[in-house]
Every structure is written in structure tokens, then in C-alpha cells.
């Protein structure tokens, strides 16, 4: 049995989901000969540490670690201090300065620890630096959950489609925008009405700018450009138009001609904009689903779809990355 000592950094919705999934999937992990223990969890209030594995039931009850923290150490300090092989970094994303995630990732990789993350910001800002740090320190660096949630995009390209030349990737990479556009088209309602509905259902934040202005999708486009196409793209290289100007009339006119309107991210053209997608296209998915069409030389066009967000769904992508490192 291979022992894996993991440090979970970030204990918000995604962090809770990961702890829950690791607990729930212990039988499968054991079948794979993996003994995965979360030996530390850190958030903005402190850390809980246990060499034998943190008791998930005990910490999952609360939103933060405030009541159960055994140390006041946070972030980078905790990553360096804890004896672990793997860091799971899931703090809130920031595409302007990347912190605190970027510091956590640098601390993990420079300490020779493998890194799995769902945090886009640091990858948007410093992908090449993190990749080099991982290579220099002989660490594995996995980030499937940063693009498309459960949609197996990175692993599909890096493993299953290995040997293919990837010409382009285009798709729907933001579930919030997709929900809003889907509802506008279905019910002939305004953008603001559909946004309010998405906020009521928890699909959109109270400040939806990050999603509806295409910033989130642009971040994913940058990650794909750098990770899959070996580009050295920055957020500012992406030409971004969000969905706030899309009218119900535009959706109705598109529908009359056999199209839907979706927010589409494209690589390597580095664009994010609302586009006409044929109703029968495999990338035309509704509600909060994500989809991507990967255009290759040998396999033609491969389309994948999946849930783009959600704590358990993100945890699924994280678990898949962990297993791929250690199996």
C-alpha cells in the first residue's frame, strides 16, 4: 500500500467537497493500493494537523477551521512545516495577483511536494514559472479542475490523445453564463432577469462580473493556451467580450435560423465572445454544463461535456489528478 500524506490548503466549498470525497472514496483508493491521508488542512483561520490523518467528520461540520485548528500556522508556513508528499491547493482564485494561491503553489513545489489544484488565478498569471518549478524539483503538477470542472479535458489530451496534434479547442467553459443564456433563450427573458434567477439558485455570485464579463472563461483560455499549446499567453492577450449585451431578441433570431448563442472560448486564437452555435452541434449544451470541441489531426474533432462547477464535481477532478500521480 502506497502511503500519500496530503495537505489540503483552502477550506471553502471546494475544500469541504474534497475532504468529503476522499473520505467517501477510501474503498476505491485502497483497491488501487493507495493509502491517502489528509494530514493537514489550512484556511485563513489556522491549520489542523494530524500525522494519522485528520478526522473528516469532525472538521466537515463547520465552515471554517476556527473551532478545531490545532495551530495558528497558515498558508505557506503550514505547507513548509507539515511532513506531506502532496499539496491540494483550493483557495479562492484571483486573476490579478494570484494570491494567496500562487505563494502556496510556489511553497509546495519548491519544497518538492506534488501539487494538485483547482485554483485558476496562479496558473493564468504564472503557468510557465510554476511548470518550471515543478520540473526543477521533480514534482508532479496537475490542474484538471481549473478548466471545465469534471470535463476530462487535460487528461484526455495529455493521455488519450497523446500523439495527436491539437489544432484548436473551442467550447463553453463557464456554467453561469451558459445557465443565463439557456434561460434567456428558453423563456424569452431579459439578461437581468436570468441573472437574478441564477443568483437565487446559487449559480451566480452577488457580483457576477467575473463570470458574465468573460473573465473566468478568459482565464481558462490562457491555461489551455499555455498547458496544451505551449504558448506563453497572458490574460491581457485574450480578446474578451462577455454576455451582458446579449438580448432575448438576439437569441430568438438565432433560434429562428437554427442557432443558439453561447459564450465561446477559443484557443489558440485567444478569444472569448458570444457566438452562434448550431442547435445540432455537440458543443450546444444547456444549463450549467460545459463542453469543448478539440480539433486534432488524427482523431478529427472530439467533443467532451460535463458539469463545470460544484464542490463534489471539482473534487472529482482533483481526486482523478491525485490518483493519476500515484497509481
Amino acid at each position, binding site marked *: 500500500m502506497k502511503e500519500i500524506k496530503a495537505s489540503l490548503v483552502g477550506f471553502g466549498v471546494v475544500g469541504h467537497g474534497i475532504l468529503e470525497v476522499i473520505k467517501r472514496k477510501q474503498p476505491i483508493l485502497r483497491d488501487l493500493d493507495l493509502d491517502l491521508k489528509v494530514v493537514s488542512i489550512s484556511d485563513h483561520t489556522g491549520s489542523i494537523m494530524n500525522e494519522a490523518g485528520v478526522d473528516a467528520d469532525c472538521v466537515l461540520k463547520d465552515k471554517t477551521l476556527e473551532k478545531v485548528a490545532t495551530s495558528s500556522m497558515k498558508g505557506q508556513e503550514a505547507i513548509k512545516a507539515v511532513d506531506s508528499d502532496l499539496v491540494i491547493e483550493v483557495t479562492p482564485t484571483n486573476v490579478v495577483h494570484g494570491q494567496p494561491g500562487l505563494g502556496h503553489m510556489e511553497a509546495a513545489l519548491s519544497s518538492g511536494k506534488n501539487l494538485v489544484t483547482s485554483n485558476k488565478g496562479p496558473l493564468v498569471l504564472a503557468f510557465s514559472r510554476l511548470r518550471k518549478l515543478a520540473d526543477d524539483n521533480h514534482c508532479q503538477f496537475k490542474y484538471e479542475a481549473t478548466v471545465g470542472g469534471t470535463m476530462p479535458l487535460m487528461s484526455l489530451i495529455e493521455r488519450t490523445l497523446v500523439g495527436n496534434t491539437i489544432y*484548436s479547442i473551442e467550447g463553453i467553459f463557464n456554467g453561469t453564463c451558459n445557465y443565463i443564456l439557456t434561460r434567456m433563450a428558453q423563456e424569452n427573458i431579459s439578461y437581468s432577469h436570468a441573472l437574478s434567477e441564477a443568483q437565487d439558485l446559487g449559480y451566480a455570485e452577488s457580483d457576477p462580473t467575473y463570470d458574465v464579463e468573460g473573465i473566468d472563461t478568459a482565464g481558462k483560455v490562457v491555461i489551455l493556451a499555455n498547458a496544451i499549446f505551449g504558448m506563453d499567453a497572458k490574460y491581457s492577450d485574450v480578446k474578451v467580450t462577455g454576455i451582458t449585451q*446579449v*438580448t432575448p431578441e438576439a437569441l430568438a*433570431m*438565432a433560434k429562428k*435560423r437554427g442557432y443558439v448563442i453561447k459564450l465561446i472560448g*477559443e484557443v489558440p486564437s485567444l478569444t472569448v465572445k*458570444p457566438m*452562434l452555435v448550431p442547435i445540432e452541434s455537440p458543443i450546444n449544451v444547456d444549463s450549467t454544463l460545459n463542453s469543448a470541441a478539440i480539433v486534432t489531426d488524427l482523431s478529427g474533432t472530439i467533443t467532451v461535456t460535463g458539469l463545470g462547477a460544484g464542490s463534489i464535481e471539482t473534487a472529482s477532478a482533483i481526486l482523478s489528478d491525485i490518483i493519476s500521480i500515484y497509481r
Partner: protein
Amino acid sequence: MRLSMDLELQDVPGQLIMALQPLKDNKANIISVVHNRDRKTPTGMIPVRVVVEMDGSKIEIVKIQLKETGVSVVRAGEDRLIEKVPVVLVGHILHSDLGDTIDRIDSTGFAEVVDLDLIMPGIEEPSTAYLKIRATGKDEIQKALAVLRAVGAEKKLLVIEPIEAEVA
């Protein structure tokens, strides 16, 4: 010369072969035949679009021969604008001079706006327009879209294009 013809056939066996025979006899190279069985005309005829490369001077002979065989020729002519792309515009389309927006495409010489549908929900509200642009080739479609993008940026219009695979 590339020509296209819109024909209407009776819904009986052998009509399509009969319609193609005059083209064969006049040495036309058939590029495509679109047989719309599911889109019958109100009189129950089946519309067929044929695109051919042929000597343009023989088109009148072909039309006469087709009529003699009972095939109705709805339209026949040079197919200069062979590619098309749908685009949706959102914004103050009329107030930003819709005529000028269309002229910018039409004046390229290689592309034209051939269909326009406009919805204006209210005076202060943004309008929405559907445009179909035809052009002389795929490259020209991309050039026409680039012109429209530039016009959109200048006039603060949202230009919604089809995903790349759909420019056909």
C-alpha cells in the same frame, strides 16, 4: 464559370436523373446537388439546387432542354457569391447608421449583405439585427467578418458570429 440553378421537380421516380441529363449533355461539371425532399413547395414540388461549372453561353440551351422535360427552372445564373455566413448584431443599430454598416460590406466588392431582419423593442433599448452575408469565397467571408468586427467596435455594436466550423 460557376453557375447555380434552383429547380422544382415532381415527386415521382426518375425526376432527378432527368433534370441532370441536359447538364451532362452540355458538359457541365456538377459541383453539388441539394435535393430538399423534406421542404416541398406549396404545390407539392421538390426544390433542388444544382451548382455546376460550365460554359456560361450554354445556360439558355440547358434551360430550354429542362423545360422540355417538364422540369421547372425557378432561377439560373452565375453563382458569384458562393459562401455565406449568418451574423447577429446587437446595439443601437439604426442610430449608428445601418445603411453605412451594410455599405461597408457591400463596398468591398467581394461580399454583400443579402438578408436583413431587424427588431427594435423600444426607443432606448438596443436593437437586434440578423444579417446574412454572401461572399466570393471562404477567405472573403473572413475578410467581410473582419470589416464587420471593425464597424462593430467603432459603433459599439456586439457582433455575434458563428463558430468557425459553421462559416460555410
